[in-house]
């Protein structure tokens, strides 16, 4: 039974990128698309592995010289655990406790433990991938520097298989707590948003200070070793088992991973039905009659898109990540202005005006907004409304693009304006920056809609599949990023020889505006035709 459920779950995950649901008979993606997706996955994994490899390379020799080989593996284990945990806590909440097919499965003659097991195994596979991204470079770096043995590899392999189990015990409990808290709160979007921002804040804080940590690790390995030994004893025993082949420590580590997970699994599976059937956040609000406000069809359509966006914390956080990051970066600029300007100088950018650098950075961050990349897919089963109401398909699509544009351009212009004040940009520089950000936002909004029309996904069970994992979102994000970075490369390689940075910004704004205009015309012709052919 677990195998059947697991197959269904894996099939659902693969279908997110494997086929589109443009027509009733979903057509298979071509070989080119699969190669592109494969290339992107390899690229992202490669970049992460190289990053972790660099960190481990910096620490391996120091720890070995201090006779703290176990600390090397302990730190790798801690990194892997943290990486797994951050990556899976919200996944656990959505996939275990808030999956829309929970009720259907619970009504079938299936043991709750089998349903839970199928979901947990699927999350385990993801977590194992996260773990490998960290542990693989750790093992390879150590093998290159000091050689390795079969025993060491076997013990490390056992630890690698157990790290996701340990992480899942915690993420299942937190996922359950998040589901419970959000079900009791009147405004569950707010609490999810706050928790997510806290997580992201912590994550970026760690990333931002990674250099300092590595320096401290290499400087004060002994003090760190004491702390790990006393406070993080599972990591300590993992280190001992992996580095020295200590069998007793391996058993302790296995117990540390397996026992908490077994308890959590047992408790949740025993209470799965009551957890699932607990009243969720559906507190009724009594309607008080008041005069309704009349507005035009177009503003209603835009309002609907904005409400869909702001009505889901998950959609806001994933679709509007660029805006969130822009505001965080500007806050960082205010707080650490000198540091950031020095970094810009260190990288040899001091010859270029700082507003140009900040403008380019804002464009790159704005490229992370992918609101319109899933907005057609999100119509899903409600597509009948847009098709049966007296509205033009072009208005529907423009409203979706407008939602993306308002959020992205609004956030970017506000962040850009604050940045201009902080760095004392001239009026011309500020104007150039605003035009680039507005034109780029318009381009991205329209381009992402077109991508979604080419790659719609309507057979989603949970909108997470649509907003985070669908092919249109991945393609849009990478396309936006590539197009945001292209002007920067072009400027350094070519235009800087005969054009000032501000003049280049005006040229870039004009370029983005022209492309946006072309896309707008395309949306009103080919886009409308494609939308009319969609069958949700």
């Amino acid at each position: 039974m677990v195998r059947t459920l697991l197959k269904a779950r894996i099939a659902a995950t693969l279908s997110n990128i494997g086929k589109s649901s443009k027509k009733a008979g979903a057509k298979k993606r071509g070989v080119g698309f699969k190669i592109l997706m494969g290339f992107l996955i390899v690229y992202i994994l490669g970049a992460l592995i190289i990053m972790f490899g660099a960190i481990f390379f910096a620490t391996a020799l120091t720890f070995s010289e201090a006779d703290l080989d176990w600390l090397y593996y302990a730190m790798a284990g801690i990194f892997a655990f943290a990486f797994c945990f951050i990556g899976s806590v919200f996944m656990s909440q959505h996939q275990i406790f808030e999956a829309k097919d929970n009720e259907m499965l619970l009504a079938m003659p299936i043991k709750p433990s089998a349903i839970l097991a199928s979901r947990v195994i699927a999350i385990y596979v993801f977590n194992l991938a996260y773990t490998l991204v960290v542990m693989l470079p750790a093992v390879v770096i150590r093998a290159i520097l000091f050689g390795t043995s079969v025993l060491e590899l076997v013990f490390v392999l056992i630890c690698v298989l157990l790290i996701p189990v340990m992480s899942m015990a915690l993420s299942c409990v937190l996922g359950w707590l998040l589901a419970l808290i959000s079900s009791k709160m009147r405004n569950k979007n707010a609490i999810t948003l706050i928790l997510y921002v806290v997580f992201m804040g912590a994550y970026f804080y760690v990333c931002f200070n990674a250099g300092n940590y590595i320096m401290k690790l290499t400087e004060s390995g002994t003090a760190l070793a004491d702390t790990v030994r006393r406070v993080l004893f599972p990591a300590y025993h993992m280190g001992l088992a992996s580095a020295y082949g200590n069998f007793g420590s391996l058993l302790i580590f296995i117990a540390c991973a397996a026992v908490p997970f077994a308890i959590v699994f047992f408790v949740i599976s025993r209470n799965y039905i009551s957890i699932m059937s607990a009243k969720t956040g559906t507190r009724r609000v009594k309607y008080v009659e008041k005069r309704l406000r009349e507005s035009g069809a177009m503003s209603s359509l835009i309002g609907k898109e904005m409400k869909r966006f702001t009505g889901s914390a998950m959609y806001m956080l994933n679709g509007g990540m660029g805006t969130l990051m822009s505001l965080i970066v500007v806050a960082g600029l205010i707080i650490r202005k000198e540091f950031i300007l020095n970094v810009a100088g260190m990288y040899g950018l001091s010859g270029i005006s700082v507003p140009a650098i900040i403008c380019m950075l804002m464009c790159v961050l704005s490229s992370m907004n992918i609101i319109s990349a899933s907005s057609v897919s999100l119509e899903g089963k409600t597509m009948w409304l847009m098709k049966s109401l007296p509205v033009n398909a072009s208005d529907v699509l423009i409203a979706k693009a407008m939602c993306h544009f308002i959020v992205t351009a609004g956030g970017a212009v506000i962040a850009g304006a604050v940045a201009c004040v902080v760095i004392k940009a001239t009026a011309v520089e500020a104007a150039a920056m605003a035009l680039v950000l507005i034109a780029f936002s318009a381009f991205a909004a329209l381009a992402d809609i077109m991508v979604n029309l080419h790659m719609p996904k309507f057979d989603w069970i949970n909108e997470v599949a649509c907003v985070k994992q669908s092919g249109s979102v991945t393609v849009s994000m990478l396309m936006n990023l590539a197009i945001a970075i292209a002007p920067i490369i072009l400027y350094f390689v070519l235009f800087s020889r005969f054009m000032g940075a501000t003049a280049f910004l005006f040229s870039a704004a004009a370029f983005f505006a022209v492309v946006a205009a072309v896309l707008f015309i395309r949306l009103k012709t080919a886009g409308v035709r494609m939308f009319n052919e969609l069958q949700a």
Partner: protein
Amino acid sequence: MLKIEHLTKKYGDKAAVDDLSLHIEPGQIYGFIGHNGAGKTTTLKSCTGILKFDEGEIYIGGKSIKTDPLACKKLMAYIPDNPDLYEFYTGIKYLNFVANIYGVPAGVRDEKIKKYADMFEITEDLASLVSSYSHGMKQKLAIIGALIHDPKLIIMDEPFVGLDPKAAFTVKTLMRELCDMGGAIFFSTHVLEVAEKLCDRVAIIKSGRLVVSGTMEEVKGDESLESVFLELEA
């Protein structure tokens, strides 16, 4: 009010609806009956402009759904078999959104919403999110949304599914009132007793082809609609 002329809709090589013609006049409640997969929903969706069709024509109030879809859609309303509505809206926001799309004046929409929400006893729930509604409540909301702009034609796919007996009675009363005022209703149902009592005319579809149509008396004669339907299906 609704003219379906030689409608053909194919999925791949298979014709879901094959050369179907029906005329529905103002004042008529027209029932559409057939087994699962016979082509009822495909026909209804083609009439509303949700589905493109391969051959034939559909006219609503004399206008073609192919060439003038907006004008056709302004005249009608559609209620699907499964009321999937915008769950991020509250009931009242959803209705206001629909009223905005149809351009219903502010005072009129207030009055209509109050009237129908009271009839269906969901006034107090209008401030709650649609996601918190039961299937029946969503169905009621979809029906109110369909009535808000005084449509001349309502196309309904299994309208009574999920409704409590009182709400089902209210819907039947409203259907008759709308037709008495010159409107028309084209609806599919599997509840043959309801069709027998409610419909002025009825059509039976089998494997995409129209098997029989006419007034209720013409179709069933002295038999029950159920026995006629079962004979035709045999």
